């Protein structure tokens, strides 16, 4: 199982902060596509950065069972 965290407008438009994928291996880019397919209303997934286990990762990186993925919209702290 792969846990996926969603924040800010991603969380709001998907309707939850966390979703799960039951696959063994998948790329960040494929997760992004899958989220768009599963949640047609999701807003901003394309401009969000991805992180795997709390470190930023590009779309071509592979995610494995047990990893924690997060989609991070443009940040606005400070």
């Amino acid at each position, binding site marked *: 199982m792969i846990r996926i965290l969603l924040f800010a*407008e991603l969380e709001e438009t998907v309707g939850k902060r966390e979703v799960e994928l039951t696959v063994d291996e998948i790329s960040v880019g494929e997760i992004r596509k899958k989220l768009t397919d599963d949640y047609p209303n999701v807003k901003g997934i394309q401009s969000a950065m991805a992180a795997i286990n709390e470190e*930023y990762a590009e779309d071509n990186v592979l995610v494995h069972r047990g990893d924690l993925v997060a989609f991070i*919209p*443009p940040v606005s*702290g*400070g």
Partner: protein
Amino acid sequence: MTDKFFEIIERPIEIDSIIKKVEDRNAGAINTFIGTVREMTKEKKTLYLKYDAYIPMAEKKLAQIGSEIQEKFPEAKVAITHRVGELKISDIAVVIAVSTPHRADSFEGSRYAIERIKEIVPIWKKEHWEDGEEWIGDQLETNAYPDGKPDKEELEK
């Protein structure tokens, strides 16, 4: 407030306690940057804000910013606390404290920290105005990342 140098908290930030963390016998200068909730942005009146964060990663990225400052200024001490939750006008959202032996470095380190927070730290602000609300995207005054994303080189730092 705890002993953690890089922290996301839900309570009001006590400025003095952040400054205390960077005190040092060989510091001659402490620069502190305090980010507060401003009422007016252009013509729009903010009623209150909500900050959310991916807390464990945000604390890691704040610590990374501290390390980046120490790469440049090995004697620097850095502490950063960011608050999340609902904040009203004039509430403090972030406090950065950087101590260094000489004053110019404390200014540079503190400035670097706030710019870097707006690039890589997963914290989000939702503005609540009289006529609506919105998650705010990239706020870099410098516009370093017009697409709202740090580039690859930045991320690998």
